[in-house]
Structure formats: structure tokens, C-alpha cells
């Protein structure tokens, strides 16, 4: 049984196609990073996964339960952190946590108290007086404290300061160690890179790339910088290799696939220095949003 399973999941709002035939499966115990710029359809996906919005086509399951047909059953083992932390303005943080715990059931109160400490939450304050980051912390504490099997997090660190962001990463890693599944929607690439096992990249409602970070890197170009002991030779027309002159005696190669052919070609030339760098997630991400698409994504 998958933690999350979506088949042909599609959502249309009037003329806008917000999500286009999403096929997705997330294993139990996996931490899945769901990447995409604003408006790519991340929140729509989560609303469909939670059965809050009705799929135009396709279906979604959470831990084997249909999300639209039986949402209450589907949510028993799930905790959710909304992107827009709108809670009840007249309740204090403590009251909010108590309310949410009542509704979810199975909250680990001791762990919750620990989380309140770690996130430095002032529980006496009313929600209306809290900043966005602090409201986000209330949601995070409530969700993490349930120790739910599946955590659906929609941009959970927006508004958090860097220290709290680190605390969140620690908590996410602990959750993973306990075997909890995390679905993390985000556009903060470093965060996804730091904690996720697998990544999906969403673009205008379609999943354009998916895999482990290693797999994604394998498919993308790696960068090899070479400094020669003398003027740089002219090496070109190698398959899968793009060359750029970065100095009088320096070349940069963008290599897709195996670097074997390049290394053979370099063989006869004296080399002072050679560095190889794997593409960052940012580069992989931007690769999908090149040119005009990138403008559209902004």
C-alpha cells in the first residue's frame, strides 16, 4: 500500500487547467519533495489529495483510502499543514492546539510540549496577535504532535526564521526516522535537497520530472571545469558535451551522460586543474523553466 497514490488526477477551474493527469505514488516512509513555482498546481494537488476539492478526473488515495469518497477515514492517519496559516483568531495557541488535538485524536501530549519548547511558541498569545511565522509554528506543532503516518506539508516553512527552519528540518528528519511519510510541497530548493528522498517537479499543472536526487542528477548535465597548462585546445563535436571558453587557458564542459569520451579527448593535453561538479537541484529545477517558460513561471 502506498502512502499516496494519484491516478490521472486532474482539476479544472473554469477555463484554467490547474492539474493535468497527475500520476504519483509515494511509498510509506518516504520523504517526497514536491517542487514548483507559484501557480504550478502544488496547493491544488494537496487539496485534491485531501478531498477538499473534487477531481475533474482521476482519483487520489491516502494510505489506501479514497480521498474524495471517504475523506474522514482517509484523514485519520494524516496530518496537514496549510500554506496559508488561517486559524481561529480568538483562540490562543494553547487553545488551538487543544482543539486540533481533540479533532484529530492520538496526539502525543508529551511530544507536543517538547515541540512547543523547540519551536519557542508563546502559547498564551491569541492567534490574531501572532505573526505569520508564529501561526505557521502552531500548525507545525499540531501536525507533528499527532505522529501521523503521513504528513502533508504545504510550504510549511514560509514565514519561519532560519533558526526555526533548522528546527523544522530536524523534526522532519526525526519523523522520517520513525518511519513517517512526508509529502513536502515547497519552492525552497535547499530545504528539499536537505531532507527529501525523492523529488517531483511540477510545471503548469504537469509533473515534468521525478526521481531521486541521484537520478535527476544523472539525467542532467554535470559541469567539468578544466584549466590547461598553456592555451586551451579546441575540443568540440563530442556527443553529449557542450563547450564554453571561460578563459585563455580554461574550458567549461557541460556533460550529459558518461564523461568517458571527454576524458579520452583530454588525454593528450597537459592539464593543471580539473574540477567536476554535480548539478544542484536549483540547476535541475531551472533547467525545466528555461527561456520563455521561466518568465511564465515567475
Amino acid at each position, binding site marked *: 500500500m502506498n502512502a499516496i497514490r494519484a491516478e490521472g488526477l486532474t482539476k479544472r477551474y473554469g477555463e484554467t487547467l490547474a492539474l493535468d493527469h497527475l500520476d504519483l505514488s509515494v511509498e510509506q516512509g518516504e520523504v517526497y519533495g514536491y517542487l514548483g513555482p507559484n501557480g504550478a498546481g502544488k496547493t491544488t494537488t494537496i487539496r485534491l489529495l485531501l478531498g477538499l*476539492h473534487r477531481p475533474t478526473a482521476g482519483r487520489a488515495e491516502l494510505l489506501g483510502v479514497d480521498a474524495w469518497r471517504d475523506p474522514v477515514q482517509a484523514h485519520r492517519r494524516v496530518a496537514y499543514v496549510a500554506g496559508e496559516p488561517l486559524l481561529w483568531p480568538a483562540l490562543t495557541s494553547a487553545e488551538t492546539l487543544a482543539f486540533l488535538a481533540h479533532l484529530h485524536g492520538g496526539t502525543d501530549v508529551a511530544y507536543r510540549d517538547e515541540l512547543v519548547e523547540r519551536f519557542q511558541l508563546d502559547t498564551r498569545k491569541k492567534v490574531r496577535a501572532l505573526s505569520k511565522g508564529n501561526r505557521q509554528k502552531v500548525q507545525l506543532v499540531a501536525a507533528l504532535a499527532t505522529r501521523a503516518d503521513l504528513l502533508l506539508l504545504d510550504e510549511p516553512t514560509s514565514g519561519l526564521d532560519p533558526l526555526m527552519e533548522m528546527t523544522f528540518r530536524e523534526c522532519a528528519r526525526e519523523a522520517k526516522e520513525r518511519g513517517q511519510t512526508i509529502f513536502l510541497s515547497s519552492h525552497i530548493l535547499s530545504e528539499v535537497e536537505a531532507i527529501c528522498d525523492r523529488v517531483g517537479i511540477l510545471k503548469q499543472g504537469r509533473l515534468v520530472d521525478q526521481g531521486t536526487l541521484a537520478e535527476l542528477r544523472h539525467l542532467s548535465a554535470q559541469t567539468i571545469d578544466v584549466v590547461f597548462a598553456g592555451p586551451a585546445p579546441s575540443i568540440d563535436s563530442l556527443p553529449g558535451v557542450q563547450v564554453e571558453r571561460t578563459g585563455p587557458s580554461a574550458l567549461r564542459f557541460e556533460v550529459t551522460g558518461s564523461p568517458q569520451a571527454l576524458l579520452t579527448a583530454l588525454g593528450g593535453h597537459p592539464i593543471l586543474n580539473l574540477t567536476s561538479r554535480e548539478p544542484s537541484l536549483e540547476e535541475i529545477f531551472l533547467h525545466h523553466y528555461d527561456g520563455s517558460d521561466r518568465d511564465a513561471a515567475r
Partner: protein
Amino acid sequence: MRPASALAVVAQAFRDARIRTFAFAYLFALYSYIQPVGFRHAYKTLASRTAFAHSFGGNKGLRLFYGEPHDLIAVSGYTAWRVGGTLAIAAAIFGLLAAVRALRTEEDAGRTELVLAGVIGRRTAFASALAAIAAGTFVLWLAEFAGFVAGRLPVGGSAYLALATASVTAVFVGIGACVSQLAPTRRIALGLGGALVALFLLLRAVADTSSAVGFLRWATPLGWAEELRPFSSPQPAVLLLPCATAVLLLAVAARIGAARDVGNGLLPAHDSSDPDLHLLSSPTAQALRSERGSLVAWAGGVAAFSFVLGIVSQSVSSAGISKSIQQEIAKLGSGSIATPTGYLAFVFLVFVFAVSLFVCAQIGAARHEEADQLETLLALPVGRTGWLGGRLLLAGLAAAAISLLAGALTWAGAAAAGVDASLPRLLEAGANCLPAALLFLGITALAYAIAPRAGAGIGYAVVTAAFLWQTVGALVGAPAWLVDLTPFAHVGLVPTQAFRAGAAAAMVAIGLGAAAAALAVFRRRDLLGG
């Protein structure tokens, strides 16, 4: 300061309020047109008008709603009495809502901060908000004026009567502006303002019903509008009172607004407190918790009003009213109002109206929760049917409580004044509000399930239209089947008439059917996105 940006703020504020403005304008135009037309239609001869004036002029129970009449022989005098008194209340509510919306809700939502971060200063922002409200008030003035003129009243007098109504709006805009500076949240501002509206209404009611304390009319802005005496013997100098008061209140509000922190009120906001874990066990319990302030306000308002009505009923008598006139009165759609119990039966129709408005407000509260918090709730193991069903149950139970309270307090008031009224019968009169309220609850819930943003508004419109039609349908000589369209025509006028069990059962059945349909529709639609 750039005039163009200030103008943009005015236009935005006006646009923001347009639905409320035009809904009120429609009400004003319709009401001010239909009263002179209806009166002319119902009382064709001078003799009938004289008799009407004789019986109605002395009816203290009616003065409570419409104020003190000055000339009931002429169409214009009747209209001034019947329209002026009622629309003054609507104008007060409009002024309060408009000011709190523009000057507190916007700030609550953080939008004022955005405006002030631009090239607009505080004074300009304040003045722009007021300019937009003034434009809205002008629309209302125009609507009322046009209604009178279409009803063939003299132009000058019509303009003056509409001005009397607008003067009430001006004062309550001032009040709304002040409470918006004091209160840290919209809810508190509306609570304070609403309490003042109720207080001034009560003052007017007392002044109008007991001539010994008639001078109290000068203590309430609603009384000033009466003292302007449109049509009968105009006293335009009285206009200085509302004008001066409005200017003073607005100056005070501007002064406070210039000196305080944006986002806060003058009253301290209690932003920290020890946890109170009551009423957090379910979404419905939490809804009761967050609505308890407004429930107490409704209950308090209804209780105070019904107690006063109970006392006033004592002064209603049929002495000197001929049989034929009593039949004329019955034509008004309110049964005989010439005896204490007959009067109370008439009054309870107003409570049916009030409780029906209350259930619409509850649907409005549900819509607010949907926009802000429902996504969080429904991502938990909480069902949609449970959430909305709980909300409807809460609204129904609260409506029942308010209805019975109205019955009990009316009895208490009547008993205190020495009227021989029976408590069980008045509790029955209270309970009699419930079938119509449940009908409207079901209809409004269905409208909300289908069109979440417009739902409560549709409910208010349906309830108000049905009530107005009940009061004027028969008067303008509409055919019986058309008059019977309004649910209010099927409410038995307890305690004078018998409880109409068949009609009540039909209303409850339709209401429950609509509620069930609402739950089914709501189960299948997308939530309002954040």
C-alpha cells in the same frame, strides 16, 4: 498628497461597498414608493382617513415602530410617519456598517497598512473612506427621494423627508467612525455600535410611547429625524443637531486615528490569556464558542425589546375604534392591533422576521469560517456533513432559544404593566417564530451550499422581501394568491389566533428538505479557496 491616488482609494471603497449600498437603496426606493401608493389605495375617502388617523394616531404600540405621527389625514403625513420612522432605523444600521467596514474591517485585514504604506496619508485615507460613504449615502437619499416622487408626493417635501433619513446615517457614520477607533477588532466595533443603535432606538420608543417623557426624543438621533417633522410642520433648524453631532464625532475619530498605532484600537486588545478549554471538543462546540458573543447580543436585544413591547401593550385599547375601522386595520395584514393581546400578536410577526434574520446571520458566520478555517478542519477526520449539519443545528437551537426568550420577556413586560396575559400562550407565540425561521434557515443554507459567497445575502434578501410583501401586499390590493406567496402570511397570529399547525408543519418540512439538499450539495462542491 496626490489627488489621483486619493480618488482611487475613494473609488475602491465605494466599489467594495456597492452590494450593500445598492441592496439598501433598493429597499429604500421600494419602501418609500409602496407606502403612499398603498395608503391611497386603502383609504380612498377623507372619512376613512379621519377614522384611520383617529385610531392609529393614538395607538402607542405602533408609535414604537414608526414614531409619533403628526398628520395622518394626508398621504404625505402618513408616509412621513410610516416610512421615516422605519427607514431611520435602516439608515442608522447602514451608517454603522459602512463606517466600521471602511475604518475597522479594512484595518483588521491589514489592507489599511498597505494603503498607508503608499503615498496616502492617514487624513487622506480617512477622508477618502468618508467620501465613499457619503457617496453611498447620497445614493440612498436619491433612492428614497425617487420612491416618494414616483409615489406622487410633492418634490420638495420628498427631498426633505429623504434628507431627514440621511441625517440619521450621518450621525451613525460618526458613531461607527468613533467605535472603529476605540475597538481593536471589527467584532467589538460592531458590538459597541450595535449596542448604541439599540439604546437610541429604545430611547425613541420610550419617548414616543409615553408623552410624559417625550422630551427624550431630543436625546436620540432617531428622534431628531422625527423632530424635523417632514411634510406636517418642517423644522429645518433641527438639522443642525445631526450635522453638528456628525462633524464632532468625525473630528474626534480623526483625532484619535491620527495619534494611534495602525492595526490597534484605543481599547486594549486582550491578546494573551490562560487557556480556556471549554467548548473545544468538536467543530460545533467551537462554533458555539466563537458565536457566543453575537448570540448574547441577539438574545439581549430581543429580550430588551420584547420586555418593552410587553409593557407598551398595556396602553393599547380598542376604546373609540369602530368595528369597520378594526376591519380596516386587519387588512394591514396584522390582525387586530387594538387590544393588548392583538397588539402582541402583531408584534410577534416582527419577531418572526427578526429570528429569520438571525438564522441568515448564522449562515453568514458559517461562510466566514469556510473562507478562513474550514480547510484546516476538513483536513482532520471531520466530515463535511457533520460540520454544516452541526452549524445548522446550532442555528436552529439558538433561534429556538431566542424565540422562547422573546415570549417569556414579553410576558414579563406585560405582567409588570398589569396586562392579563398568559405565559404559556406567549411562550407559544415565541415558539411560533420557529417554523418560519427553520424554513428560511433551510433556504439560506441551500443558497449557501450552491453559491457560498452570496448565500447569506440571498437569505437576507428573501426574508426582507417576504416580510415587506406581507406588510404591503394586502394594502396595495394584490390578489390573495400573490399575497400568500410570503411565508409570513401563513404564520398564525398567536396569541389572538390559533397556532396554524398545518402551515407550520409544511414550513418545517420544506425547511428540513432544503437543509438536506444543502448538505447533499455541500458534500459535493469545492471549498472556497484561501
